[in-house]
């Protein structure tokens, strides 16, 4: 156990800090969930890429910096310290990129990864279907082989970024007689392909970042299939593992929220409730604990270890922590909590954040599914059971 940064790591931190201080937009961007904000966020991805900060953990060959996970954590800490915007390219960086590196052919890596790293192609994920949310194995959308193409018909929904993104990825049923986890294939597709209709879904806050996708005999070349036909479930599980696991939500994001919450509390200390004070202290403790745990997992992976069902512990912890911090801020704001903009015109980021935090226990595998996984795979409790 060595909790001291090396001089190289400290130098790296200084480098990130300097770049971020010089480049992070001074004003918060408009929300990613509308056209204007999406465009701002894509522009930011390109700025990041110009400094080669887009995909820091990727190999240099694919447009990354080949950083190790500790360096990644330092990068993220400095990114959120500087107030860096949410990442439009998140699906690419954390989900699809690692998946292609693990399962893709050399040709696929060369074709898809560099433009992703440069922020030129923004990716949407397309897992869920109207009848397949938590129960992803209930997927029905079909991809029928026709020569050197798949012909996709069906519907996906709650596809994040899909209202505006360029490409999408998801799993489709390639074996029409298959059931549940079998007969599924992982396919990448151009969202502007003929036959795809996007219907943006208005979200809770009124904006439209995710979308329904309708596929009407959409032709996709066979070479867009990742890993073998019928391997989709395994690939998707690996992808979902990346999502729930280490990289989707780095601790820096939550530590920055905790710090803002402490500042908010201080400004309202005289009139705040005891529950709010307790929650603010929990916010510091829990964000720190999340950081320690992430460093521990990163250290383990760097030493050749793997992350398994523990990812479900992470998912529950950060999502419920994030909701708790934002709920606390809403309570501290009191009458001001309901305002979309305060009297001085400033956006109420706590309100936006609270609304977003409510999706945390739902997406990336609902917390109910995660608790099942913990109970069954980590604790070894029996699977079958009646309510």
């Amino acid at each position, binding site marked *: 156990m060595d909790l001291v940064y090396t001089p190289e790591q400290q130098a790296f931190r200084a480098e990130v800090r300097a770049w971020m201080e010089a480049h992070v937009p001074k004003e918060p961007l408009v929300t990613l969930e509308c056209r204007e904000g999406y465009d701002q966020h894509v522009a930011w991805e390109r700025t990041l890429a110009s400094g080669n900060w887009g995909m820091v953990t990727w190999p240099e060959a694919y447009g990354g910096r080949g950083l190790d996970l500790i360096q990644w954590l330092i990068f993220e800490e400095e990114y959120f310290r500087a107030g860096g915007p949410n990442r439009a390219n998140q699906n690419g960086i954390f989900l699809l990129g690692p998946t292609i590196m693990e399962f893709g052919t050399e040709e696929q890596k060369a074709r898809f990864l560099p433009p992703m790293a440069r922020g030129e192609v923004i990716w949407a994920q397309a897992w869920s279907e109207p009848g397949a949310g938590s129960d992803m194995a209930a997927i029905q959308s079909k991809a029928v082989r026709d020569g050197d193409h798949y012909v996709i018909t069906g519907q996906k929904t709650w596809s994040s970024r899909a209202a505006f993104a360029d490409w999408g990825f998801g799993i489709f049923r390639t074996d029409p007689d298959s059931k549940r986890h079998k007969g599924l294939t992982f396919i990448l597709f151009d969202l502007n392909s003929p036959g795809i209709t996007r219907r943006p879904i208005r979200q809770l806050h009124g904006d439209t970042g995710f979308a329904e996708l309708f596929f009407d005999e959409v032709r996709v070349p066979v070479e867009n299939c990742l890993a073998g036909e019928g391997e989709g479930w395994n690939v998707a599980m690996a992808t979902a593992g990346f999502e729930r696991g280490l990289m989707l939500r780095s601790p820096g994001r939550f530590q920055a929220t905790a710090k803002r919450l402490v500042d908010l509390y201080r400004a309202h200390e005289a009139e705040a*409730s005891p529950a709010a004070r307790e929650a603010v202290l929990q916010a510091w403790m829990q964000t720190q604990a999340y950081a320690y745990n992430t460093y521990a997992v990163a250290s383990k992976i760097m030493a050749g270890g793997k992350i398994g069902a523990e990812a479900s512990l992470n998912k529950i912890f950060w999502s419920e922590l994030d909701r708790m911090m934002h709920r606390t801020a809403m309570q*501290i704001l009191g009458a001001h909590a309901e305002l979309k903009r305060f009297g001085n015109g400033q956006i109420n980021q706590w309100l936006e954040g609270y609304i977003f935090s409510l999706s945390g226990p739902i997406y990336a595998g609902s917390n*109910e599914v995660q608790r099942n996984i913990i109970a069954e795979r980590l604790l070894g409790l029996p699977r079958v059971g009646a309510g």
Partner: protein
Amino acid sequence: MDFRFTDDQLTLAESVRDYLAGTHGPEVLRRLDAEGNRDPAIWQGLTEMGLTGLLVPEEHGGLGLGLVEAALIAAECGRACLAEPLVDTAFVAVPWLVRNGDLADLGAIAAGERQMPLPHVLNPWVADGEGSALESVDPLRNLVMFPAAGSADPYLLDLGALMSAAQLVGLADAMLHQAVEYAKIRTQFGQPVGAFQALKHQLASCAVAVEFAKPAVWRAAEALQDGGESASVHVSHAKVAASDAAVLTAETAIQVHGAMGYTYEVDLHFWMKRSWALNGAWGDRAWHLKRIDQAVIGGTMPIGPEHTFA
């Protein structure tokens, strides 16, 4: 000693519930949201039901009823997520005007011709009224910042807090109902999600919170009506318990709805947002908790088994 509503009170509440269910369903909310929030025909209907004059003395053209009846109806307004600002005018402003002997506008209010949202120092904006517009997270709340500072009268604050609490228990009831109905029809893993014990138990916990917030609201209404010394503490209890129940139920209801709950297409969001707005209105959680704190820990009110109705 009889902790029940009268048959008349229950009949009145039921008739309002039925009326709102029939004329102010979710499809109406969606229409109002798209078309500017207010519909004179709805206000007219409320007036014809006598609700604008519920608390207006009979000699001024009203029904002359009391705060307990008003709280019951406010809960129904919450249940229906009523867009029109009935509660602010008819159940908050009217009893305050009556208490102050300021009777000039009561006839017009009872007749539905006058709305009177009142600001308070703790509550500088309310829905509708004159002033610069503010945007609430609640799309049906036409929020304005009053140009003048509001009153600091604690009775006005108590009225606003009580009626917010009453709406909040109605909102919570409705969200719980929506979550339960969704859980019955949404299937995953081959069964309705409402058959999963984890969701059942979360919903049961909401039912516990809501059902034990309600009697605190009714008791506060009765206390404020009677004007007892500790009425304000009971109003604060009602506001905290109702807000907490509504916030918990909102979070649980969206979880039960899954990704659908995160969309604007599902009705739930109207109720959640109203809950968040009322949670902070007319004294926030911390403000009311402090009033309880002074009474209970500060010792300004007797507590213990023999003081249930102190």
